[in-house]
Every structure is written in C-alpha cells, then in structure tokens.
C-alpha cells in the first residue's frame, strides 16, 4: 500500500488561512490503513483547525471517500463541491491530483506527505519495500528489492562497499546484496546472482501509464 504521514499543522494552517469554507476529504483505502488520512484523521484535523481558527472564521466540512484515485468515487463530491471554496485532501499524491483534476477551478491542498510504497509491520509502523522502478527484478534477487534496500539502488551487486553484511553508508543498514546472497544461497539458486540485469532507464521520465493487457481494446474504445 501507499504510506503517507500527516503534514505538520502549521503547514496545513498556512494553506487554508485565506478561505471561508473548506472541505477536508479523506481517503478510505491506503492512507486510512496507514492511519494518516481516513475519516478519523479527517475529523481530528478539522477539530485542530477549528480550535486554531475559532469556530466562525472558517467553516470546515468533512467527507471521506472510498478512494480518491477513482473518478467514480470523486463524483460523490460533485453535489457538495460548490459549497466550498477550497479542498484539503488527505489522500496520497495520486489521489490529490485526481481530485484537483476533477475540480480544476478549486484550490486543492495536501494534508499528508506521501512517503512510500510499503508494508504494515504493526499498528502505525510501516516499512518501505518498493520504489516502483518499472522493471521488477525480485525474481532474480530472492524477493528482496535492491532498488529500495540498496543505498545505490544497484540492479547488479553488491558493490565494493559491502562490509560483513552491512552497507558502507551505515553499519546498522544491512547490505541489500548480502541479504540477496544469503536468501539465494539458502534456496540453492545462488547462480542467479551472476545474471546481469540490464540497467533501468531512469532518463527523461514522464508519468508512466499502464494498460493491463486484457483491457487494451477497452481503453482504445474510450479514445
């Protein structure tokens, strides 16, 4: 899932200060799961804002959608959008942008910092696992992502800095490629470590689009 963190209050306060009616919009999926932008966080943020601005200066509404990265769910805002002169979104960066796209004349402000794609270690505790590099090598690396875990994001490793299991940047940071070596060795497929992965093309990145193979016709028909 996508993991986000609530922005510092001052930052949010500064963004909404000039408006009269503000709608705070939560997202009921990733950011709810990581306890940053579900309905509870929406209500809490609004309470903080109300306390700060006083009850009458700015009016704060709240609404939490299933997902903000789907137009069908954003549509639920159509009816009430006109009542507000600004939106605060607690979804990830993708959701916030889609919201801004649906309501192009409305100022939209982020209330969370979208941090990473990660896993849930325990309540409130997350770890980054994937950088969405676009050409996954997990099959060759024993299921350990070298892009995320290796300080240099090496597709082929380790580098000369590997140091008794630690990365050269920091003794407490395990060397991704050492872990990969251990995992592959334990599974008896160490020979795979020698396979060279072609470098990822990080140049001239523009927003990537994906169409799942079975849906190409459908997307084409949409124009």
């Amino acid at each position, binding site marked *: 899932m996508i993991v986000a963190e609530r922005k510092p209050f001052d930052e949010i306060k500064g963004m909404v200060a000039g408006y009269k009616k503000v709608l705070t919009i939560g997202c*009921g*999926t990733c950011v*709810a799961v990581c306890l940053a932008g579900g*309905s*509870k*966080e929406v*209500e809490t943020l609004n*309470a903080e804002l109300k306390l700060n601005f006083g009850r009458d200066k700015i009016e704060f509404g709240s609404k*939490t959608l299933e997902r903000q990265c789907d137009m069908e769910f954003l549509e639920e805002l159509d009816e009430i959008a006109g009542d507000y002169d600004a939106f605060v979104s607690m979804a990830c960066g993708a959701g916030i942008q889609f919201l801004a796209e649906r309501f192009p004349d409305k100022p939209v402000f982020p209330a969370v910092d979208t941090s990473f794609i990660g896993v849930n270690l325990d309540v409130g505790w997350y770890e980054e696992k994937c950088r969405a590099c676009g050409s996954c090598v997990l099959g060759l690396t024993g299921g350990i992502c070298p892009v995320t875990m290796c300080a240099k994001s090496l597709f082929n490793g380790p580098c000369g800095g590997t140091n008794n299991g630690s990365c050269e940047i920091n003794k407490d940071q395990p060397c991704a490629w050492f872990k990969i070596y251990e995992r592959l060795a334990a599974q008896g497929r160490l020979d795979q470590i020698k396979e060279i992965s072609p470098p990822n093309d990080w140049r001239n990145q523009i927003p990537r689009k994906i169409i799942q193979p079975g849906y190409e016709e459908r997307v084409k028909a949409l124009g």
Partner: protein
Amino acid sequence: MISEGKIAEKSMDMIEININKDVLVVGAGFAGLDSAAKIAAQGYKVVFACKDAELPDSGDEFKKFVESGMVEIMTNTSLDDFSGVTGDFRATLAKGNERIKKNFGAVVAAPKYSFEPLNADYGVSLNGKVISQTRMEEILADPEEKEKLKAGDGAVFAFFNGLARELDPCSTERALRSILALQDIENCTAYMYAGNVKVASRGVERLFTEARNKGLVCFKPQEIPVVEQNDDYVKIIIQDPVIRKDIELDPDYLVIDELMNPGQENIETAVNLRIDADLDGFLPSNNVHRFPVNSNRDGIFVAYSPNDAANVALRVKELLGDGIKKVPMDRGVVDEKRCTICLTCYRCCPHGAIFWDNGAAVISTVACQGCGICASECPMDAIQIGTFSDDDLNENIDKAVVSAENDSPKILAFCCKNSAFEAAGAAEKFGIAMPAGFKMIKVPCAGKVDVELVMRALVDGADGVMVAACHEGNCKAEKGNIYAKWRVNEISRRLEAMGMDKNKVIFTNIASNMAHEFADKVNDFALKLKS
C-alpha cells in the same frame, strides 16, 4: 453535577447462542493431566494434546476417563494453527505429517517450564553430592535409589532455597515436598538454608509447618554460606550471628534450588493462542480483574501449578455450562461499509475478540468485553460500542460542555466506569467540593476515549479535558489505560504544535476507592487552568 454529564446506559439486548462444549488441553506441564481429569469430571469431553511421546504418570482418575472416552490422548502432537473465539475455537493439531482439525469451546494451556539450577549463585558445581532439585525429585521417584538412601547411617540432606535471590513459592513448595518425602524414609534427615521462605501459595504454609514438626532444621544465614566441595565430600559453613560462631554441616547431599524459566514452549503457546505473558514471560499475564487461571482471552485458561487444575475446571464449567450462552447483541459492531480491513482493531483488541471475514472485520459478541479500544483506534470510525456509541458520546460531550458553568474553568473528565467514575460518585456522596465547571462523561474503559472525542470537547469550549483511567497493570481491558495515555500525550503534542497550552489535556490514574484523590486532582487541574 455528575448525573447531568453522564450517559444513561441503555439496556442491551441479549441473545442466546450455542457454544461448543469440548475442551482442548494442550501441553504436558504439571497441571495438564490433572486439569484434563477435572474437566472431564464435570462432564465435558477433553482432548489432551502434548508434544511428548509419553505421558508422565497419570492418576487412576485420569485413566478412568481415558477408558471411558471422555479424555482423548494425542501424544507427539502440537498445535499447528489456531483461530476462532471463545465457545468456537478452531484448532489444527499436527501429529507427524497428519493435520487434524477439531473445534473446541475452551482451551487450557499447560505449558512445560524448564528449570535452571542456581549452583553458580553459590559458587559450587553439581556432582554426585551437590545435586539439583530436579535430580532430587528423580531420586525420590526411583524406588531403587530411594532404597539406597536407607543404607548405613542413612542420609543427611541440606537444601538451599532462595539464598542469593528471591524465588517464588513454587520453588519453596518443591523443596518442602522433597523434604517431607525424605522425612518418611528411615534414617533420613533434612536441613534447609533459606533466604525468605515463600509460603504465599495455597498449602505451602501447611507443608512448611508439617516439615518443621517432623524435624526439619532451618537456617536463615545473613550471608551466602561458604561451601567446600570435592567429589565425595561437601561442607557448608555459616556464621551464627547470635553466638558469633561458625556452624558447619557436612551433609551427604546438598540440594540446590532452581529457577523456573518460561522456556520456548511457553512462548510458542502464547503466540499460537494469542494470549499475553506477564513480565517474566510466564502465562497468563496478571490482571486483578481476572481469576489467576484466566488469560486475557475469554475461553483460554492457563494451568500452571497443581492448584490451578481445580480452578480451571470451575472456570471451564462456568463458561461452557450446558452449551448455551447469553450474550449482549451489540457490544461491539463493525459497519462493514466503512471498514477497510486495515487490521488495526484486530491487532489492538486486548481480548482477541476480532477476526475478519468477507472483506470486513468482525467482532465476536461472545468474546468482546466492550472496552472500546478497537473503536477508538479504527481509522474509519467503523466500530460502535453498544451503549457508548460515537453519537451518544458526542451528544453528551456537547451537552456537558454547554451546561458547565462559565465562571470557573470548564473541565470535562472522561471517566472509566471501573475506577474514576466510581471515585467521582463517592466524592459526590461525601460532599467534596468540585469546581463549578466540572462535568464528566462515563466511558466503558479509558481505552474508549479517542483523540476525536477529546478534540471535540476542546472545540466545544472545554478549557481542560481530563482522561481518568485505572492504574497501570489494573486495567480490566489490559491495555485500555495505556492506549488512553498514549492518546493524551499525542493530543498534548498536537496542541503544542498549534501553539496552544499542551496542559489543557491531562491523563491521570485513579482507583475506585480514591474519592478524595480524584477530587484533589480535579481541583488542582482547575487551579492550573485558571492561572
């Protein structure tokens, strides 16, 4: 003053549900067999599963139940998978490659503990003369070795017990049982060198008196005794503080006390059954609101000492009865539409009452104790607690703040019904003066007080909010008070970040009998808020 702000508890609708009446006893610890027999004697079918290949010597009563089919024995068996809730637990038992699925209404864990002789504490090493308590018990259990003790002049035993560190009554009990067994053998005598003789467990005091009456000599040395030893000789020297002289003894055997270690099996059991251990790693975790054999999960018991077996059988009977249980219909209810199965509630419920099914969290109405921790942690506000729903609480907060008198600081106190609410009630009865602007909201547990509720009170115009919970280690919901404290700290942090006074919200621990202290705390808070 109190009555206005508190919630009228609605009556809860009850339903009857059928529960499974079979019981699983897992682990061949001291009390496992005994518990199985005692539960079978109440008329419940028992499956006794343990990892060992053979059972320790079981009594006649146990054998009788095995023959009649009331107790089924599964040796070489471990608990592979475990789910479900009280009255309906689902266990997968692993025996070799075989996986056997069985359902149970209750589970008794009787994990085995390991023992570690404390000879290093006394600077001695174990040999044929210096033996561990476990070795002592082996000798007594072996008729041949026992016979040998009678030979010649008989044998003199010295027992060390809790001399270098505090041990527990269980260790005293083991020593005393061995001593009593020795005293029954011709020509055998026993001495005990003890720190504090711990007798605070059922029957131990009696054992101690009995042993003394039968001639046990006890020393309570000021310092750890000096021991001289070689292969066929051991000598103990202590200084008598009264006569200021060394007292020497050269027994045939020196028996060294042992520390009980929770061990691996204990950890596995805790993880499998999802129950908490206490600080030392023993099961179950301590809680004054529960019987000592009850774990934090309803329907899961722990039998540890011989006394526990009888208690476990009682509790099992109380739980399973005739297989029909009356439970409140809506103690905790999940709104499936709002739930995003983040698993927060599942991870936070102190009673293991939550599972998930069909894309939403489900609260077992039998296992739920209604503390509200889950509801307060749910990021989607998807959980409502029977008589303490968000709507009810919000309405009460609004009313309480509005009705509080204006001339003193308005203080709203969220009071746990098990402690602070009682204390406040008593304070009112005693006629102790409270600030004019004081109001309170009754909650099922401080764990039900979430960030939203406190913030709402502040937005409504409360000058200060107090969250009052039971003392640490005393919470009926195990961790409700801890969650409440974390949340209050989080709110303080947020207020500070907003440039407001972080002391507008405070957390406090109160017991139900602390009426005066409660009033003092509230009055103090009012004074601080004024200044």
